[in-house]
């Protein structure tokens, strides 16, 4: 063995050790997390993995995503070339040339082509960071123009240049049999050929540059955000198959700990998430809190968990005390309480994340810790919690008032066998003076379409959405159990809701309590009734002018209902609604979800104002909503902007216009 081979072997062993140590440290930290079953339905998981990891579905959906797609696939292909390179460094006789010639030549061609593509893509990436870095790539602790970012990009670019240099020189020396299949390297060879006396030297220079950079890359990988190269694919494989907004249940046993106040109380998947973040900033740019100047940045929440885990993990594993608190510090490894309370649970972060990180459930877990272990939460929430516990509605209004909305109509009580659907009116539908109009409109529609329905009246209780999203799982648990018992006792199987929060909670969350309800949101029902001809309007809805449709997060992102309300508007008015720039999956929250409805917004621009301004850019006459919270937030936003010419209507109100004489 030559001395240079021995030197290379030593370096290779060293880098492998550094790499393994880094990986071991991180993966062993992940095992500090709590157990969680993410091994069910492997077929679905594989499908998810192919779509989002290998297909890069989310990545390519955004500008410059194609760039990443190219680098990703080139990386996979060039893994082979680099494997060969390392093996050959140790045992020069080893080579892919042993493969059948056609395959070998094909590979040579691919290597050459992809190396060029990578070179172009990395140049684009560097240029983007240098000349037009998008603001969302900067977060408090990680910048678009970070040393790490440039280092890795230059590593990749140098690797490619060295690859061409090496093969160009070899071709010029006549050592490369597959020249025909290496167009780029051959072109490089024509340039290098003018230095015939230096070619041997160039071969070894390029070889060593390639070797050293490759080994350095291997060393750095597990210690940087590029760890995602290793974790993203498994992370996508293990991502939830259900609705991430449905938080796991807690069991209330004496002596237990509730929520997450220490990093090792997260599940292993939460921790894996933190090592999978690519720092792309997409969640940040979609987050209504982050974009309106709140301290919450979903990306930083994830980054803080990682930083905290790296600092505390080893200590915690040995049974020691943490050195950085997970909650409450203004540092890279902690989330402040203000941050934790700022989330509207809109899910935009999760919808944007290319590696399917689940931000929101982690925030909810930390909220649980604050509420359940510390009884520490914003002042406004005390009244909310007590009202919920005492009177089962957020305002603390007497339950007897639940029936006031139908003072002018005849409404039946729900009775199994007599009425098909339970119309679950919801707290806002029953108590909020504005939303009551929508309730009446919906009731009128149901009657006009001959739907058989009834209500629970005074017996109806709040579904508990707000308390669950606010981390008061103890109270939610009680409310859910009471409601499920009530539904079972009354024989309720089909439910109509007008509030997407009730809709989502009854439909998805209550499943955890052993009840499968057929829950339909009124926008879905109305669109079916119209399409099937069961609801016959007396006239086409005119009068409302240009209608702009605003997606509710709990209907859209959390339940994938996007078309039904649009369809209903189209059928009722004869025209598709106008769309926001940010609509559908990318819709922007009104600011009220996740219990934010009951808290003041202390910092930055108010979220509802931001959305109302965006609405006014489209110059609508009517903004159509499908959620009581959106109704309040939109109306308030318009009022603050003195936009007297624009009104807000619930989808039921829009359609019910067509029933007037």
């Amino acid at each position: 063995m030559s001395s240079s081979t021995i030197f290379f072997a030593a370096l290779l062993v060293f880098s492998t050790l550094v790499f393994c140590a880094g990986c071991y440290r991180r993966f062993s930290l992940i095992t500090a997390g709590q157990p969680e079953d993410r091994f069910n339905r492997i077929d679905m998981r594989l499908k998810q993995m192919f779509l989002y990891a290998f297909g890069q579905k989310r990545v390519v959906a955004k500008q410059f995503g194609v760039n990443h797609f190219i680098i990703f696939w080139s990386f996979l292909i060039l893994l082979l070339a680099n494997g060969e390179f390392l093996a050959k460094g140790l045992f020069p006789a080893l080579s892919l040339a042993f493969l059948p010639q056609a395959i070998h030549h094909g590979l040579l061609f691919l290597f050459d082509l992809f190396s060029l593509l990578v070179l172009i893509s990395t140049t684009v990436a560097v240029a983007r960071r240098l000349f037009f870095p998008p603001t969302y790539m900067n977060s408090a602790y990680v910048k678009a123009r970070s040393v790490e970012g440039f280092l890795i990009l230059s590593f990749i670019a140098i690797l490619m240049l060295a690859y061409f240099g090496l093969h160009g020189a070899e071709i010029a020396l006549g050592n490369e049999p597959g020249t025909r299949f290496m167009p780029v390297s051959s072109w490089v060879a024509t340039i290098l050929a003018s230095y015939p006396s230096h070619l041997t030297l160039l071969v070894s220079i390029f070889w060593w540059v390639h070797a050293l950079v490759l080994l350095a890359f291997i060393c750095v990988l597990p210690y940087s955000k590029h760890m995602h190269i290793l974790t993203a694919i498994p992370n996508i494989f293990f991502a939830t198959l259900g609705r991430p907004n449905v938080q796991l249940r807690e069991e209330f046993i004496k002596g237990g700990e509730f929520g997450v106040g220490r990093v090792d109380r997260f599940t292993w998947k939460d921790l894996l998430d933190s090592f999978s973040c690519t720092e792309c900033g997409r969640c940040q740019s979609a987050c209504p809190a982050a974009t309106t100047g709140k301290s919450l940045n979903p990306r930083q929440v994830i980054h803080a968990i990682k930083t905290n885990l790296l600092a505390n993990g080893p200590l915690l594993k040995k049974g020691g005390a943490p050195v950085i608190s997970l909650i409450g510090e203004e540092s890279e490894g902690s989330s402040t309480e203000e941050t934790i309370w700022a989330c509207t649970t809109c899910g935009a972060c999760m919808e944007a994340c290319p590696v399917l990180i689940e931000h929101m459930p982690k925030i909810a877990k930390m909220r649980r810790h604050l509420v359940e272990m510390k009884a520490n939460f914003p002042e406004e929430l005390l009244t909310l919690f007590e009202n919920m516990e005492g009177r089962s509605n957020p305002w603390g209004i007497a339950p007897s008032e639940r029936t006031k909305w139908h003072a002018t109509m005849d409404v039946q009580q729900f009775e199994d066998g007599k009425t098909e659907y339970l119309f679950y009116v919801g707290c806002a539908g029953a108590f909020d003076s504005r939303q009551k109009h929508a309730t009446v409109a919906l009731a009128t529609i149901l009657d006009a379409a001959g739907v058989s329905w009834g209500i629970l009246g005074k017996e109806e209780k709040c579904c508990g959405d707000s308390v669950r999203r606010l981390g008061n799982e103890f109270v939610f648990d009680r409310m859910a159990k009471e409601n499920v018992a009530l539904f079972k006792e009354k024989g309720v199987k089909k439910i109509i809701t007008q509030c997407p929060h009730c809709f989502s909670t009854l439909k998805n969350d209550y499943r955890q309590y052993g009840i499968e309800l057929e829950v339909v949101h009124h926008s879905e029902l109305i669109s079916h009734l119209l399409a099937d001809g069961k609801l016959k309007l007396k006239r086409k809805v005119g009068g409302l002018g240009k209608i702009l449709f605003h997606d509710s997060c709990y209907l859209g992102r959390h339940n994938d209902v996007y078309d039904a309300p649009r369809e209903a508007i189209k059928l009722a008015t004869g025209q598709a609604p106008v769309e926001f720039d940010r609509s559908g999956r990318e819709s922007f929250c009104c600011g009220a979800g996740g219990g934010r409805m009951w808290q003041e917004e202390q910092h930055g621009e108010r979220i509802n104002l931001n959305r109302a301004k965006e609405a006014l850019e489209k110059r609508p006459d009517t903004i159509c909503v499908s959620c009581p919270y959106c109704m309040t937030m939109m109306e308030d936003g318009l009022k603050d902007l003195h936009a007297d010419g624009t009104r807000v209507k619930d989808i039921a109100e829009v359609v019910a216009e067509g029933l007037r004489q």
Partner: protein
Amino acid sequence: MLIVVCIKQVPDTTQVQIDPVTNTLVREGIPFIVNPYDTHALEAALQLKDRYGFRVAAISMGPPNAEATLRKALSLGVDEAILLSDRVFGGADTLSTSNVLTRAITLLNEQEEVGLVLCGKQTIDGDTAQVGPGIATRLGYTQLTLVDNIEQLDLLRKRVRVRRKLEGRHEIVESPFPAMITVVRELNRPRYPTVPMRLTSHEAEIKVWNNEVLKLDVNTIGLKGSPTWVSRIFSPEREKGEIVGDGLHDPEGTANLLIDKLLSKDLLAL
């Protein structure tokens, strides 16, 4: 040293209606809550516990189901909860109620010196505000009513200085221990129970003291010991409201109009 908090289970009055025929409160299906003023007394006691290390006992006179009220107190952190419950205590007015509570506090005092007794200024069902002062009189404690701030507490000299919230003014008074304090809502913001505390309180022991323990003369307690007699309960006729101004088109003008109106009826003071 012990702080005793007197709490009462009351029907959630916002949900109570009066039966127009029988003129009685319709209590069926109405949830019970801890008298809201008492929650502030409880909080004050717990804050003093946190700061000075008092022990806190909560006592409540009521039917067996009033236990829930005491469990809530336990979940918030009181050290001991005692339910004063006996058929002979039933039908009590404020006088006989204060007899029962007084005896209970006296018994507690035999075990451990009582420094302060805390009560809400009144209950939302009776609204008499008599029980606190009644206890103080019978125990011979100083009574400090309508307290909205505990200014100073001197454990060595055994003195407490409080601020009383009176009509249009405040009064700062000081008294030696033992003292009975009734509190108003402004005093503090009651805490919320943590889940571990709730779970512990579910299993915690609630002592029940009946008249065998208190040994009171039956003529001084319950209905027999109550000189007050309620002849009728009714909802006062309310004048129908009126709509003032046009809030939709002239919110500012309407607000001014409303303020003028309230001022003229003496419902608002500047």
